[in-house]
Structure formats: C-alpha cells, structure tokens
C-alpha cells in the first residue's frame, strides 16, 4: 500500500485544523475515546459545538489560544492509501515550523478562505511549497457555506491563484471548493455545489499519482552514515558502509565515486539485514561493500560514477532563515548536507525575496526570522551536492549555529557560485 505525506497550510483562521478534524471524522478515523475527549473539552468552552480543531491542537498553550504553534502529525488510512497529515501553523511567527513540516511532504493543501481569497499567508505558504519543491498542490477554497456556495466566488479565487502559481512555476494545482465545517467535498460530495464535478478532497488524496516521488530515476546517491566493522575473528575483514540510498539505484558491479576524495571503486555486495541483493534503490537503507580498500567514513557521499554531483567550496542557495538572531554577511555557521558537516561563512546575500510580491531586493546585508533570500556561502571543505530542483535529498541542507547548536536555516542548494 502507498503512503502519502501531505501538509495543510493557510492563514490563521482558514480552518486548517477543522479540515483535518473533518477528514478524520468523516473517514471514521477518530476513535471513540478521542471523540469523547474533544466533546468534553468543547463543552468547557462557550459555544458547546464539537470543535474538531481540538483534535490536532495538542499543546496546552495551543488550546488556550486556539491557534496551532507547532507541527502536529496525524495518521489515517483508507482502503486505498495510508496518510500522514502534517498540520502546520498558519501564523507568520511560526513559519519555521511550517517549513519543518513541509520538507518531507509530497503534497500541500493550501487553504483559502472563500470570503477573503488569496491573502498574504497564501502567497507565503505557496512560495515555501514551491521553494521546497512539493510536487502536488491542492487549493482548498474553504468556508464556501459563508459565500452561499457561489461558483463565481470559487472561479475568481481559481483565477487569482493561477496567476500566483504561474509566477512560482508551480505546475500541478488542483482546486476544490469545500466547507470543512459542514463536510462539503471533504470526504463526501456536496449537495450544495452541483456545479462542481471534480473530486472531493479525499478522492484526490487517494488517487494522486505518486510513482515518481522517491527519486528512483535520479542519479544514484548514498551518504555514508556509519561504518560497520565487527572486528571479530570470523569477520575480520568485514567493512560495510551503512546508509540510506537517497536517490537512484545501485547494482552489484556498479562503478562508484566517493566524494569529497574523488576515489573510485566498484560495488562488491549490497546487503540488507544480512541478505545479499543484486540491486537496491531509493529510499532503502542498505550496507554497501566495495571491491577495493578506499578510505571512507561518515560524511562521505558514494555516488554512481555515471552521474557526478557538484563538488565545490562556494555554493549558491535559497535560504529560509529560522532564527531570531540576525543572519549577516560574514557570519559563520556549520553547514550540514546529507551526513557531511563543514564550517562555512556567508559571502553574500544576492537578494532578499519578498514573500508577498515575490520581488527581489538587492543590497541587503542581514536577514530576520522567516526571511527568504538567495545567498552565497564559502565552505571550509568542499561539499558535494545536487541542485535541489533536481534532487531534493542531496540538494537540501541546514545551517547550524555553532554556539547554540540550534538549526537556524534551511537551504535549497542551487549550484557552484
């Protein structure tokens, strides 16, 4: 059975948590005791209606404030597919949590309030979804009940969003009019919108094509996590490189190149839990054995020699800055790409991206929390990577603050600067 990870994004009061609650409730994925718990909690509030949002707002401060602060994960399954829902915060202050949630998703649901149309948050979240290269976007035009289920309102919003999608080069967009509160077009087809003949949200989630999402057709990449060396009498010469194939395929006999050293060798054996295989593919976790003695340790990248990555000490990237401390030209950080870490310094901020207008501002020398920019880094050691646009696994990187140890930036690498 397939597994689809999707994120719900949108403005603060667009009803994201309600939509998730509805999806779970109507697909009968909420268990009796969980429902009783939210019924109890709903009663202790003013209106007395069951508040489906309480299902996902798991922290005390979230329930108190009625907002989502951090990502919550929910799991459900239909006879057709398994789903991981990533419920992300809408508030601008928590954008970094939204980025965290979005980074592993194959699909993003962008909620739009039918009364307000495309707003600032819609633009920001769509930008993040496009920068992160999420392949499928669903625009959920919610609260249709509050605009009398008007087809004109829906069409106008589709036109507004299509314009935005064009600017972002987002190709796969699906539009669905719904009312999460009443359940229209979430799981069950709406009787109130006979003019809409597309899929309901759940039908779409169950059938959207996922076959290309693991990067099996991309070049073979294998960041080394750990070297297995039992050093026992009977396994004296055993030396296995443990890691996860992040893209492509590896076959026994393939010629490989190790980065950053550039040494080459061939694959002698591929093992999963003691079983030998002729071939393995992304996203399998395996152990590789090479035919020759090559110096390899954690942080090295093994690739198939037929398609080499970029290896460089200057790298250009899109940055999503996630810390309250300012990001400045000249600052030093730890850069992590795959399992490799190296120190780096900020050489340049090429431009800052306005998250609403998508305009580029040059002559910027510092960035604040949740700012996006194109930057250039200089690294202490060469790093090996692919462009994020082509390969999410070896093109994504993080910046770590050397003193606080916190992850402060998400990088979508572009190429050698």
């Amino acid at each position, binding site marked *: *059975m*397939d*597994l689809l990870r999707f994120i719900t994004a949108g403005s603060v009061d667009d009803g994201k948590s309600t939509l998730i609650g509805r999806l779970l409730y109507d697909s009968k994925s909420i*268990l*009796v*005791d*969980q429902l009783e*718990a939210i019924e109890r*909690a709903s009663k202790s509030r003013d209106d007395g209606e069951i508040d489906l949002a309480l*299902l*996902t*707002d*798991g*922290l*005390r401060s979230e329930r108190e404030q009625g907002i989502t*602060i*951090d990502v*919550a*994960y*929910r*799991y459900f399954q239909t006879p057709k597919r*398994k789903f*991981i829902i990533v419920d992300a915060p809408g508030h601008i202050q928590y954008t*970094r*949590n939204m980025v*965290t949630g979005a*980074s*592993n998703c194959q699909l993003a649901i962008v909620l739009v309030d039918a009364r307000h149309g495309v707003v600032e948050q819609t633009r920001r979240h769509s930008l993040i979804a496009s920068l992160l290269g999420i392949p499928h976007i669903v625009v959920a035009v919610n609260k249709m009940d509050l605009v009398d289920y008007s087809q004109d309102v829906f069409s106008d919003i589709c036109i507004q969003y299509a314009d935005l999608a064009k600017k972002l080069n987002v190709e796969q967009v699906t539009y669905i009019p719904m009312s999460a509160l009443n359940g229209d077009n979430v799981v069950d087809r709406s009787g109130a919108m006979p003019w809409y003949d597309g899929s309901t949200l759940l039908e779409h989630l169950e059938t959207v094509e996922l076959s290309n999402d*693991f990067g099996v057709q991309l070049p073979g990449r294998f960041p080394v*996590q*750990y070297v*297995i*060396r*039992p050093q026992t009498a009977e*396994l004296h010469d055993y030396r*296995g490189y*443990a*890691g*996860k194939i*992040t893209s492509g395929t590896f076959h026994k006999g393939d010629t490989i190149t190790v980065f950053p050293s550039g040494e080459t060798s061939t694959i002698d054996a591929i093992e*999963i*839990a*003691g079983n030998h295989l002729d071939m393995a593919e992304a*996203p*399998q*976790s395996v152990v590789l054995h090479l035919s020759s003695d090559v110096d390899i340790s*954690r942080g090295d990248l093994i690739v198939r020699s037929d398609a080499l990555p970029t290896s460089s000490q200057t790298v250009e990237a899109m940055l999503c800055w996630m810390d309250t401390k300012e990001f400045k030209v000249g600052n030093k950080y*730890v850069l*992590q790409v*795959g399992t490799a870490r190296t120190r780096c310094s900020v050489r340049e901020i090429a431009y800052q991206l306005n998250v609403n207008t998508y305009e580029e501002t040059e002559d910027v020398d510092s960035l604040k929390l949740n700012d996006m920019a194109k930057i250039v880094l200089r690294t202490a050691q060469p790093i090996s990577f692919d462009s994020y646009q082509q390969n*999410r*696994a070896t093109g*994504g990187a*993080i910046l*770590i603050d050397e003193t606080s*140890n*916190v*992850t*402060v930036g*998400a990088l979508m690498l572009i190429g050698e600067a």
Partner: protein
Amino acid sequence: MDYLDQLESEAIHIMREVAGQFERPALLFSGGKDSITLVHLALKAFRPGKFPFPLVHIDTGHNFQEALDFRDDLANCIGEKLIVRYVEDTIRTKKLKEPTGRNATRNGLQTFTLLDTIEEFEFDACIGGARRDEEKARAKERVFSVRDEFGSWDPKRQRPELWNLYNGRIHKGENVRVFPISNWTELDVWNYIRREKIDLPSIYFAHERELIVRDGKLMATAGGVIKPEADDQIVTRQVRFRTVGDISCTAASPSEAATLDAVIDEIQATRISERGETRMDDQLSEAAMEDRKKGGYF
C-alpha cells in the same frame, strides 16, 4: 515501495544517525512491543556489528514478570549489553515520596531514575519507542527531541527539523531523545511484527488471569502491586494486554485473540485508542503527557 518498507528504512536511517552523531547513546528498552520492535530494527541497522549502544531498562519494580523474563532472554539471545536501574533504589537513596492511595503508580517516579541513569552513564542520546499516534503531545514532538539538563521538553522551542537531516549537536549535560518509529501507528507496529515474525511476551496474547475490576478497567492482581479494597470485585477472565507498561497503570482487555492474526483483527476493528483503553496515567488531565514530558519523561 510498500509503506512498511518505507517506515522500516526511515527508522533504520534514524538509528544510524544516532550511531554516527553521538558518543554515548542508549536504547530505552521496556520489554513492550514498541521497544522490541526497536531492537529488531537495530539488528537490521547494525548487524553483523554489535549495537553501538546498550539496552537500558528503568524498572519500576511493578513490571509484569513475563515482560522481565522476555527482556532478559532477548538481551541474552542477541548478546547485547543490558543495563537495569530500579525506581526502588531511587526511592530509597533519594527519599522520594511514593504516591499512595487507591490508584497509586510509580510511573511518574520513573523519570527520576531515568535522569539519574542518564547522568550516571553520561548518555547523550536515548532512543525510545514513542509514537506520534499515541497521544496528542507526542504528535508534536520532533524525531530528535533535545532536552535540557533536567530532561525537560520545551514544546515552544523545538528545533526546526528538515528533510531527513537530523541535528544532534548539543551542549554538555543536554541530551537528545530519539524516536525512530515516530511515524508508525499501532497497527503498523503489529503488521511489522507479523511480517518480520518478531517474538513478543506471552501477555500480549489472550490468556486466563485474575483481575481486579476497578473504575470499569481490568487491572492485574499479579505481584500484589494493586491492593484490592473491600468493595473491589476479583474476577478471572480471558484477557490480553494491548500495551505492556507498569502493572499499576496498565489495564487488560477482554479478548480471545491468542494469535497475531487474531490480535491484529481485533485492533483493526477497535473503536478505542491504545492509550485510552489501557493507560490510566494519561487520563488524569487533558495535558497529562505534555506535563510529564516537560518534567523529563520520554
């Protein structure tokens, strides 16, 4: 790729990240199905090498004997180091006040022993079998969850965690709780156990047992942990345990399911969540788990 293969690969990747990033990790092992699954995943991640961490059990002294025997046999059979530390000892040496009364449990005191054990061995990472589908505070936690020197989880200051890039850099005294099966559901664990033919303690399957009926829940009389009161009814029933934790806070479920297939059929059909059915400790308040995590619980 099948979803179980995806989840397995993700979990193995996370375990190897622990091995690669930390100097003194540990695997928290309780003898329950989730930590047994972790051990199985660790075998897949590191064999034919040894585990780069010991198994660590914090024993409340109120565990099911079947689970303890299983724990010892498993550690023995795979030839890995097992460290056991006892809540009893912490109570004695630190003069902790043990909860008393009708539904008293040592579950909360585990945290003290766990933090002491982390300090004793200077563990910088502890792998645990918590899953996000279990509970709403757990649904919010990162895979690499950084805790301060008091073991506290601060839900408002979680690190960003992108793609499959895990940042395990910490200051001395801090530690990271790592949850490789974060994205597994209860049913995924059971399906994986069936697929991989993983052995479990016998109490996961239907058996006859003496129980106390209390507040609508069936609590084991085993070990005399729960003291029957005058109006408590003692019954003998065919039951199994859906989760295996401390006797004082884990309820049994009436069941005839004696095989894995039968257990999975029952779980598929149930309309009650795992912790809702079996755990007394989560039902204290709406934020019971969040509060315990802030106090250092895993």
